């Protein structure tokens, strides 16, 4: 374009200039394309479903028999049945399927933890399914390693971020319209991590910028600590505190006192 403006003054160099401009244009295009290809491998994978890895292929087969009815043919979701799975990542898949929440038994207020369906009893199959969802939509992934957290700091973070719904002792609590925050006792470390990372159902998402990987591991350390510690006297009465303890001592203690009083006052 610049060459056309200079044309009247410098007629002899016209062809050479045009060739030069074309070459520069080609080089720039190639560079831009190359950089794009280098930094955007994921989007390429999206555009080309043919490039699914062998593991993802296996996952797709599983998806097609147990998830497709609610989440749609390409995991784009089905209205009023299931949400889109694009962008949820393998973390969400592994959390939902390994805790038995998915596949859901029925549509309802709460996807409840249940025994893992027989099809997914082999954890490798859940991983394959996760791999498939990861490759078609991307999203957060589980780190696979959850140890080494500091339970003291985890306890502080738990009370700030988790206790309002799950309770101070992770026993769970009520939400609106029949929903509830589940007790954390049955969840393993990977599921705890996955829940924080992906925000399943009505739980808010705690991304890595909000709770760092280290902080998540601290929280896991605290929850595991509470799960494995023993209650004084062997039974925590639901760990609810004064409420159940008060009821227990009232029912047991008062009954005992009443009968003792009757025995003392009764004629011998």
């Amino acid at each position, binding site marked *: 374009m610049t060459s056309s403006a200079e044309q009247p003054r410098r007629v002899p160099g016209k062809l050479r200039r045009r060739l030069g401009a074309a070459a520069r244009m080609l080089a720039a295009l190639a560079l831009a394309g190359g950089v794009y290809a280098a930094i955007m491998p994921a989007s390429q994978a999206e555009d080309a479903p043919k490039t699914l890895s062998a593991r993802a292929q296996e996952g797709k087969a599983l998806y097609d028999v147990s998830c497709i009815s609610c989440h749609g043919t390409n995991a784009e979701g089905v209205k009023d049945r299931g949400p889109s799975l694009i962008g949820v990542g393998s973390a969400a898949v592994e959390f939902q399927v390994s805790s038995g929440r998915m596949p859901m038994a029925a549509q309802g207020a709460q996807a409840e933890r249940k025994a893992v369906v027989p099809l997914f009893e082999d954890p490798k199959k859940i991983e394959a399914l996760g791999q498939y969802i990861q490759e078609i939509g991307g999203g957060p992934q589980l780190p696979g390693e959850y140890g080494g957290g500091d339970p003291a700091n985890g306890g502080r973070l738990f009370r700030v971020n988790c206790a309002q719904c799950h309770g101070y002792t992770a026993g769970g609590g009520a939400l609106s319209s029949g929903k509830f925050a589940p007790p954390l006792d049955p969840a393993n470390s990977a599921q705890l991590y996955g829940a924080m990372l992906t925000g399943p159902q009505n739980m*808010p*998402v705690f991304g890595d910028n909000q709770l760092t990987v280290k902080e998540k591991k601290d929280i896991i350390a605290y929850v595991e600590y509470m799960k494995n510690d023993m209650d004084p006297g062997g039974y925590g009465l639901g760990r609810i505190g004064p409420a159940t303890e008060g009821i227990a001592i009232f029912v047991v203690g008062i009954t005992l006192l009443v009968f003792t009083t009757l025995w003392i006052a009764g004629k011998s």
Partner: protein
Amino acid sequence: MSTQHNDSTFDPDEPHLTRFDLVREGARRDGVEIVHYEPRFAKAGTAAEKRVERTIAFWFMITGLAALAFVVVYVAWPWEYEFGGHLDKWYTPMLGATLGLALFGLGAAQIIWAKRLLPAEVSVQERHDDVDTVEQKLTGATLVNMGQELNVSRRPLLKGAIALGALPLGAAAVVPLGGMIVDPHGHGDPLFHTGFDAKQFNEGKPVRLVREDGTPIRPEDVSVGGQITAFPGVPHGTTNVHADSPTLLIHLRDNDAKLTRENLGRVEVNKGGMWQNFVAYSKICTHLGCPASLYEQQTNRLLCPCHQSQFLITDNAKPIFGPATRRLPMLPIGVDDEGFFYATSDYKVPVGAAFWERP
């Protein structure tokens, strides 16, 4: 005392009176008649009596052993906290069980002694059903006499002294209650302003939203469908000095954010309060001031755990369930040049529970 029996004829020194006769007379003077009295065992030292004695002795022994066990547990049982199922978890229960058993044994021994060894006795106590008018008049006269003896009406100095002394004493009991009442207009209208008031607490500079540790918050720190509790970035902003300021910053999904933005117009003061898909509401419930922070990210409801109030985030935090009657106040937010959240102004409605002057 009121029932006077004719005791003038009773002489305790009469030689034919037994000790039990004295006991019976003593009870009679207190209005109690012993009508039946016999030893539990007609013949002393029978096998049945011995058996009862052994039972009582058994309970005394239990008391001794349990009390000894208590001392041993107290001294020797491992009590220091150890993770997991160890003996330390049984320290308190063991103290309670041993001491409880010791006291129970002591009580049981005494009760059994009283029920099985002491003589069987039936006593009848008089009931004072009739009103004794003479006694009434005597008591009345005594009281009036006490007042007369003080004779305050004839001693005006003492009357005044009592008034001067007693009135301030009453004030000393009542006045401290006044300290519990916050003057909504004292020291910069505390009920109308929070730590996000730039003029009052930050020398006019916009107040940033910070975490509990005081670090400012960027938009990318909160994931879509996430929420974070934010505090005013002013001195002591995360302490109880600004206990009314905690704010819930929520990152909504595109659709929910669109709906929320459309609904902003319904509440005049909330217009323009959102920043992109972020919205911030006071965390203090408008019912009784609990932290309402149970955020349901699918239904976009915010729950208060104390009395189950629910607020709809997508419609200006309108109360949709429970005892709360007011919306949660919205904190208008923006993002500054350095990419951190700040409050474009203080809350435009007082936060927290209603008070009598709340506009």
